[in-house]
């Protein structure tokens, strides 16, 4: 019964909100708003908590002793981005195009890690079995 009731519900995203409706059997309307209090669970991609230069231990901040929540092999990307940004600011303030070259160098290192992370975002911890090889000696089925 709970399953049948749940299956009548639908969701969509609009104006940065999630909409939840129930299919209606009424002849005058197709969907109605939820009529019961039930738990909704959203599976999401999200940003991390903000960094804060503090020795406190807030649950909703990345303080001095905390690490980003994503895989640690990508943590250094945040340093690459920050160094690139600081070189960009300095280049702009000093009007020195040579400094901009350093910014581009660090930005390229950051972009490399972004590209690498994009390739792994949906694999979770399943390993690298995302491709396979066809060996000709195995023959082909047509």
């Amino acid at each position, binding site marked *: 019964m709970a*399953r049948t009731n749940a299956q009548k519900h639908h969701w969509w995203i609009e104006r940065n909100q999630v909409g939840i409706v129930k299919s209606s059997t009424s002849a005058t309307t197709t969907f109605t708003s939820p009529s019961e209090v039930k738990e909704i669970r959203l599976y999401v*991609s999200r940003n991390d908590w903000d960094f804060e230069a503090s020795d406190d231990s807030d649950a909703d901040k990345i303080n001095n*002793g905390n690490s980003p929540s994503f895989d640690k092999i990508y943590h250094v990307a945040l340093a690459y981005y920050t160094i690139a940004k600081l070189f960009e600011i300095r280049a702009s303030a000093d009007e020195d195009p040579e400094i901009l070259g350093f910014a581009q160098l660090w930005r390229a290192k950051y972009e490399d890690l972004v590209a690498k992370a994009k390739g792994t975002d949906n694999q979770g911890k399943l390993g690298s079995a995302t491709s396979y090889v066809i060996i000709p000696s195995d023959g082909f089925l047509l």
Partner: protein
Amino acid sequence: MTHTQLNAYIKKVFPDESDADIALHLTEASSDFTSRTKILKGVETFDTVVNQRYYNLNDLDGNGDQRHIVEVNKVDYNNYTIQRLVTPPDEVDIT
């Protein structure tokens, strides 16, 4: 790497930069990285309200202490996965 280790890495290049400024840039970096790669997955929960159709993605639990949602991939209603509508219902109700 901890925040302190990232800070130390950056200070090898910019030793005079303040910790507070570095924290601001690290937050900007983190938002850019997680938005573009969608690498940080998670689950958010909230309860429906009778006759309320829309729920703000920036503040689902009403506490205002939630991480920014980049993308919603799947939704469960009362422990059962429900289907996504490609477009909103044509009969408009903005509650």
